[in-house]
């Protein structure tokens, strides 16, 4: 409601996510079509459950919570959806850092609404994970115990207001490139959740782009702030696509299960190609001396992010890993007495109703 009251800057593409929103809509149409034509009937009484599962996946139909599925498929999905949900919740912190200092009331409202959207994404992703037979409380505990991860990007600090713009443009942009194919994931509840998430993320990306556009066309200090943010967020954003294909441990099996549709490197390339054009309109420089168009590949050549740094951040040694976790744990611990009170109050009400009924 409060999130969309800004006008498009001159020259901004209508869909800053480079046409990806169209793919989300296509995935949604595909989902409806699949539901309309119905799944292959089965499994027949004598049919192998595993064979039926493969048949459904190969036919581009959706696996639903009550269906039989391989244990490893279930575990992979729980890990991936939970990690995604945790990322939304932890991801509220770096941007939340600027709500109190947002430079205009309009920007404050937009940012507050955005961070609130992320909490909402977290909630419906936890709900999607719960369809696989694990509770939100268990998943939250796994996060707090450090036994499940969240996206490493949120372990970088937001040092200026322009970082809010850079997160929207680059981090949300990378997230969309990663997530759009998930709208066609073989697991129905995840695919449906991702369609909704992607639509809102696309909106967030546009807001970030607009913040940077305003700064890049503002005072010299604002321009410098915007360039500095892009300089710091570019390579960590490239690293969001994960290790290079040769080193990715989960990729091949996830591709076969149609949880994943494209390789890490393919998605990274797609992101780079999308950003180069937009950076030009923004008037900001991508911090890569070797970035240039390759006519043969019909794509940009670019410098890889520092994967050693990525491994360091994943293993807990990014600039803010400790703070992010300490913050989440403190919020959870401080809220304990409130949650206990709510449970006690609800139990008393339930008891009263029973007494009345008896």
């Amino acid at each position, binding site marked *: 409601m409060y999130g969309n009251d800004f006008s498009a800057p001159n020259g901004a593409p209508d869909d800053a996510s480079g046409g990806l929103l169209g793919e989300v809509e296509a995935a949604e149409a595909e989902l409806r079509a699949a539901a309309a034509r119905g799944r292959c009937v089965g499994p027949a009484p004598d049919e192998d459950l595993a064979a039926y599962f493969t048949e459904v996946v190969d036919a581009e139909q959706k696996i639903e919570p009550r269906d039989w599925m391989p244990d490893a498929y279930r575990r992979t999905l729980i890990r991936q959806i939970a990690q995604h949900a945790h990322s939304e919740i932890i991801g509220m912190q770096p941007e939340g850092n600027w709500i109190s200092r947002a*430079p205009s*009331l309009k920007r404050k*409202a937009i940012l507050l609404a955005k*961070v609130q959207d992320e909490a909402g994404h*977290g909630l419906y992703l936890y709900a999607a994970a719960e369809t696989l037979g694990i509770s939100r409380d268990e998943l939250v505990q796994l996060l707090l115990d450090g036994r499940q991860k969240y996206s490493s990007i949120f372990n970088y600090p937001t040092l200026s207001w322009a970082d809010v713009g850079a997160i929207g443009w680059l981090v949300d942009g990378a997230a969309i490139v990663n997530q759009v194919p998930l709208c066609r994931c073989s697991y129905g509840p995840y695919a449906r959740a991702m369609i909704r998430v992607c639509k809102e993320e696309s909106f967030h990306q546009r807001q970030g782009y607009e913040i940077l556009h305003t700064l890049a066309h503002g005072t010299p*200090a604002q321009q410098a702030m915007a360039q500095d943010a892009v300089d710091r967020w570019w390579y960590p954003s490239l690293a969001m696509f994960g290790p290079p294909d040769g080193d990715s441990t989960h990729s091949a099996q996830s591709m076969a299960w149609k949880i994943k549709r494209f390789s890490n490197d393919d998605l990274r390339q797609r992101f780079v190609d999308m950003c180069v054009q937009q950076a030009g309109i923004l008037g900001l420089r991508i911090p890569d001396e070797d970035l240039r168009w390759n006519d043969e590949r019909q794509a940009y050549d670019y410098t890889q992010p520092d994967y050693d740094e990525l491994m360091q951040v994943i293993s807990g040694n990014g600039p803010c890993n400790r703070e992010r976790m300490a913050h989440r744990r403190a919020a959870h611990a401080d*809220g304990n007495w409130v949650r206990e009170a709510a449970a006690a109050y609800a139990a008393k009400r339930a008891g009263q109703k029973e007494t009345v009924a008896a």
Partner: protein
Amino acid sequence: MNGPFDFTLALGDDALIAAQRLAEWTTRAPEMEEDIALANIALDQLGAARLLLSYAGELESAGRDEDALAYLRDDREFRNALLVELPNDDFAVTMAKLFFLAAYQLPLYSALAGCADERLAAIGAKARKESAYHLDHGALWVKRLGDGTEESHRRMQAAVDQVWPYTHELFAADPAAPVDPATVRTAFDEVVGPVLAEATLTQPDSAWAPAGGRAGVHTEHLAFLLAEMQVLHRAHPGAKW
């Protein structure tokens, strides 16, 4: 206070400072659903603040827009009641502040919806619907915490005791204003009394009634809140955001 400008500014400042405090809960709430709910209420307050401050700027006719009023005034020029600037403290204190504020804003905005000034009437009509939700939310938590566990009861009673004295300032008489706040005291009492009783809480009987916010004499807390809120805007004079 005197006339529609001061009145509109005071209401706008109440809403703005309440929004700033509520937004501090983002990423810190006791439950994820509550994180979303508090952000919702903060957005409502911020939305009302923007309408009220914009209109105040027009009434003043000195060329100040919502941002000039929000970012370029010092604490002595703010006209919010002290209640909204008090630190959040624990969740019980925040809920006491939310509940009392909503129990004041709902009848005030409702009366405003019927006032002669068309702009204020429109703002009142919009904001009262939101206040009704804030009041429900605050009242539910006051009851849950008051009648929850021993610890939550102790904290909620302490919170009510701590915040209650600051409610009196909200109803300071101002017969010249579009709606005299003194006239909504009865509606406030009629809502607050039964909720506190149902929450097994005691309504405080304190004679202390701190005031000064409407005259720009605040607690020590407001200047810190403004320093943080205004720092970036003031660091770049004249910049567009």
